[in-house]
Structures are given as structure tokens and as C-alpha cells.
């Protein structure tokens, strides 16, 4: 049974003591029937952050400069969605490359390594903030383990499945898609990682493993890097990904 104890044991029951049990917006008081000014504006600011994140742009220039450190070619690509408005209404266009990008990929030398794809998704802000930190943790481990890496791809107006087309074009045997997640009211900068073995167009989400809520206040970046590295290893070892590959890392660590 649930037991909620009142801290001071007094008879003065204020609702605010319930706030310790949940991050829900309880105990915010009221002005008449309405939400008081301060919490009303706090809510509005949280929504503003989420909205700004949806419309944020991926800083491809900064990312391209910084990605040089990994000594891999960097390809800047774009989906068929020409702007945010179209991106939001036509997920199909966000899942497929524009002509210029397709041509650029066709010119690449293929290898059967791991391709890392970075896409803005629904929060470019999440990518601008988190992706380099994550790659600094992840790429050295992949190279140390002897994995071959394909060029890093930066995709504007991209959705998860666009990675299948890119990976297939590059002949990659595995894809790591790092993408901005749909912003929540208190998490405008959350990044997701979608891992796919033998990516090819037409796959659905059950063929992928997802590590989500990657951000400082959520799944911390070092933990996320561990998890992604583990899943890549397992996936390549067992030659599959998705619902058939369970995250048993916690269990394995204990053995």
C-alpha cells in the first residue's frame, strides 16, 4: 500500500507537501479559477523553449569544422522537405533525400562499415548541444575495437528512416542515426539514437534499437555512449537489430 507521510506531523495540511512525490505541476495554487501568473508564465516559457527547438537550425558549419577531429569525411545532405513547415506535414519527404544529396552519395566509395548519421529531427538544438560530446566518447571506442567507419553524414530536415537510404547507398552494414527528439515541455534538447543492422529502405521501427532521452538531465551522455557501444557490438555479433535484440547490458555487467 502507498504510504505518504507528512514530514512535520502537524495538523496543517498544505497541498504543497505533495510536490515532493512527482514532477507534475501540482500545488501551483490558483487566482480565482485560473493558474496564478508565475506558474502560468513558467509554463509559457517551457513551451517557448520547445517551440524554438522545433524551429532551430542545425549548425552544420560548426559541426563540420568540429567533426574534422575524427579524421573521417563529412557529407552535408538534405531531405526532400525544403522547409520546416513541409517537414512537419510531410513525414514522407523527411524520409527521403533530395536529388543533390542522392548524387553526392552516389559518388562515394562504398565500404561495409558503420555509418554515423546526424539529423536535426524535431530538435536541431539537441544535436547542436549533444552530438559532439557523444561522438567524442563513442568514435574512439569504435575505432579501438577495430570497426570500419563510413563518412559521417549530416542531414537537414531529416527523419529516422532517411538513414536507411543513406546507409544503403554507402554500402554500410550498420547505421547509427543520432537525431533530435520531439521536445517535451521540460526537455527541449533531447537526442535519440537509432541503431539498425543491415539498413535498407523499407525497414520499420521494429528493426531498430533506440536509445532515447539522451541529454545531461536525462540519460547522461557517458551512459548513452556505453549503451550505444554495447548495442552495436551485440548487434554485429548476433547479426540482427530491433525487437529481437534486447538490452541485457545491465545483466551482463553483473556476470
Amino acid at each position: 500500500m502507498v504510504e505518504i507521510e507528512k514530514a512535520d506531523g502537524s495538523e496543517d495540511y498544505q497541498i504543497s507537501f505533495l510536490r515532493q512525490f512527482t514532477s507534475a505541476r501540482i500545488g501551483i495554487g490558483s487566482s480565482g479559477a485560473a493558474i496564478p501568473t508565475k506558474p502560468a508564465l513558467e509554463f509559457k516559457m517551457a513551451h517557448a523553449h520547445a517551440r524554438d527547438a522545433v524551429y532551430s537550425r542545425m549548425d552544420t558549419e560548426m559541426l563540420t569544422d568540429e567533426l574534422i577531429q575524427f579524421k573521417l569525411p563529412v557529407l552535408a545532405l538534405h531531405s526532400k522537405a525544403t522547409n520546416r513547415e513541409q517537414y512537419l506535414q510531410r513525414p514522407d519527404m523527411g524520409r527521403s533525400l533530395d536529388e543533390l544529396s542522392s548524387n553526392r552519395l552516389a559518388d562515394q566509395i562504398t565500404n561495409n562499415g558503420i555509418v554515423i548519421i546526424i539529423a536535426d529531427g524535431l530538435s536541431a538544438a539537441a544535436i547542436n548541444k549533444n552530438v559532439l560530446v557523444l561522438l567524442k566518447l563513442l568514435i574512439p571506442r569504435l575505432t579501438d575495437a577495430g570497426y570500419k567507419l563510413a563518412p559521417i553524414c549530416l542531414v537537414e530536415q531529416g527523419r529516422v528512416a532517411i538513414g536507411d537510404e543513406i546507409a544503403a547507398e554507402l554500402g554500410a552494414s550498420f547505421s547509427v542515426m543520432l537525431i533530435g527528439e520531439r521536445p517535451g515541455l521540460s526537455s527541449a534538447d533531447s537526442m535519440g539514437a537509432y541503431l539498425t543492422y543491415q539498413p535498407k529502405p523499407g525497414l520499420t521501427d521494429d528493426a531498430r534499437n533506440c536509445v532515447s532521452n539522451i541529454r545531461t538531465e536525462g540519460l547522461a551522455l557517458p551512459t548513452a555512449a556505453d549503451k550505444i557501444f554495447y548495442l552495436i557490438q551485440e548487434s554485429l555479433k548476433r547479426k540482427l537489430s530491433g525487437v529481437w535484440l534486447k538490452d541485457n547490458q545491465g545483466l551482463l555487467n553483473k556476470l
Partner: protein
Amino acid sequence: MAYQHTIAGRVYRFNNLKGLLAKASPHRSGDVLAGLAAETYEERVAAQITLADVPLKDFLADAVIPYEQDEVTRLIIDGHNKEAFQIISHFTVGQLRDWLLLDETDNRILKNIEDAVTPEMAAAVSKIMRNQDLIAVAKKIEVITRFRDTIGLKGHFATRLQPNHPTDDAKGIAASLIEGLLYGSGDAVIGVNPATDSPAAVLNILMLIDQLRQQFDIPTQSCVLSHITTTLELVNQNAPVDICFQSVAGTQKANTSFGIDLDLLTEAHQATSALNRGTIGNNVMYFETGQGSALSANAHHGVDQQTCEVRAYAVAKKYKPLLVNSVVGFIGPEYLYDGKQIIRAALEDHFCGKLLGLPMGVDVCYTNHAEADQDDMDNLLTLLGVAGCNFIMGIPGSDDIMLNYQSTSFHDALYLRKVLGLRPAPEFEKWLIKQGIIDENGYRLALAANNLLKKTKGLWLK
């Protein structure tokens, strides 16, 4: 059957009823995504003018999804009341609209046709109605359901208390639940979306709500919105299941993607009814729907999303539900792009549901990637209150921390009751007064928290 209309020398041809319905639909992103929407404003209005002249009888001859292929179509056709249809069988869609709007067409008359109007007829007439028509007609219709209290009475307005928590933490759920009660929320149902859909996890939440409800003798019902197979398993173990929940859609294929069919719904409905937990009625089902669900499951058969939605109401109706909730803005901007589309869709859903005799509520909501904000929700909330919507959601500060979307707050319901003079469900209102949470005029009492929490001592003893 093909239809056509000529505007200034240009012939608009529509190959069948389903194509005509799609082209006549007010603009929304989901129909564009599906490649079904009218390409110009003129084409859309030409389709509406054409649709207005279509006899209602045509809808019985030209099923939008073939009878042989789809059990929802079979449910609609086999359940059609031919005798009641005599009242409206001579109308075209346009004449139906005019008749619905007549002052003489009152609640009693509208009740007589609830089994005569098919979902496709309701969808069709809604497409040629303005927002004010959707409000005016829906307002006339009273749909009353009962379990432990009475929901849907004119002049009353209920809420589902939705105390979700991202990890189903019992104290977290209880904290939001108590706060909600203190705002007079929860007369429609106390309903939790579980983060984990396992029988054990769901049972824990059920026990929590049930214990609280019994301790305070609250005249309401509880529900954990797990998949129907999970609920059925719990019902069969005699767990305290008041209300059985399921999301439903308007095509057999979409329902298959939800892991359900009509037989499973029937089994769950019968099993839950047999628990006999209702005190003043036995409406035991709670259904959720939403435009775009069939398309997102790639199961729309070329039928526009609003028509698919109304077909889902035929599914719901078979089981005499306590509550039906259109979760209108949850699905995202690729189906309903902005506040305008969400508001329009919600008014259509409420109207069509009421016309078919359903106890309609609406989750007045949006996601962060939709072009909408709290002002749009205030507009919609107020319009639905005027239209006589049975219930909305009640969520702490509008922010559902489990499902990550924004819906109506506990405060929003108080606002609506205040500006429109609406009251909670009568049994629940009496309880709120007895507990010292509100006064006879519906105003919250300053000592509400003290009054209730003092009494919770027994429950919360460590």
C-alpha cells in the same frame, strides 16, 4: 456511383462516394499526406456542393469500404435501423443539415435517428456544416450514461482526472490524484495511462485508486488505460476493474493494428459488465479515438480521416460506453497541423459522436510540434463547453509528464464551469460539498486541502 458538378465551365468529377467525401473535407494535413484532399479551394467547395445533393439512400448502396472486406462496415450496415431511417430517408445531405438545424428538431427527435444515421452520413453532413452548426446541433443532444454517477446531463460538465506518472510511481500518481480531487476533478473517471502495460503493474494502480475511492466513498469510477487484453486478464482474476478501456479505429485493418477485433471487444464488454460494480448504471466501457489513426496504421482504404473517425464511433456504440474520448490533438501536425485544424476536427468529432448517440468527450490537446498553444486550447475548450461536451481531461498544470503532451488543466475545467454556469456530475458535486472542497455555488473553499487531507490520515499512515 460517380458524381459531378460544373463550376464556370469546369467539370468536377468524383468517381465514388468515398472520393467525394475526401474532396469535400475541410482542409487538414492528414488528407493531404494521404493524397486524398481537394487540390484547390474551388474543388473543395465544388465537392461540398455536390455532396449536399447526394441522397442519404446512396450511402446505403455505396459502402466506402466493401462489406465483404471489413467488419466495421458489416457492423454499420447490419446495425442500421431501417424503420427509424424512414424519418430522414427522403433527404439529401444538404436537406439533412437544414433539418438538423430546425428549432423543431429537438433532443427527442434527434434521439430517434441515432441508429438511422450511418457514420458516413454523419461525416458527410458535418463536412458541409460550419463550426457554429456543429455546435448548435450538438448542443441539442443529451447523451446520459451512468456507473456510480450520472454523466452528460444538460447543465453539467465532467472531467477525467488523469494523474499520470512516467514510472507509474504510486505516490506520484496519488499526489496528482489528490490535487485533482481538490480541484473538483474526476467525475467522469479517474483514469491513469500506465507506463508499463503488464497485469501486475496495472493491478497496482487499480488497487491504489480503488482503495482511495472506497476510503472516501467517492461516487466515481476508476480506469487504468491498459490494452484490453491486459484488462481482460485482470477482470478474469476478479481485480477491481470498474471501466474497461480500449483505443478503437474505424477500419478492421486499423483495429487489427491495435491488436483488437469486435469479438475481443464483445468478450471484454461482457466480462467487465459481469463484475457488476456500477451502483446506478452499468456503462462499463471507455473508448478513445482520434482522426488520423487509420492513416497512421496504413489502414484507411483511401477514406478521408474524418470519415474513418466517425466509423470508429460505430465500433464504440456497440458496447454502450460510459465515455468516448476523441484525443484530437495528440496525433501530431502531419494529421492536424495547427490550432484551426485541431479545433475544427474536435467540433466535428463531438458533433458526429453525439449525433450517433455517444457520450462524447474531447481531449483538448496539442503536441509541441503542432502550430498550437494554450490560447487555441482555451478557444476549443470554450467552444466545446458551449456545445455541451460531456467531459474533458484534468491534468496538473496542463502538462502530462508521462505522455508528453499538453491537455486541459484542473483549472481549465473550473474556468469553464464558472463562465458557462456548468456543474459537476450531481452525485459527485454532492460529495465535493460534503467534503468541504466546494460550496453550494461551486466555488472552491480555501480550506479544501485541509479538509480533505485531514481525513486522508488513515490512508497515508506510515
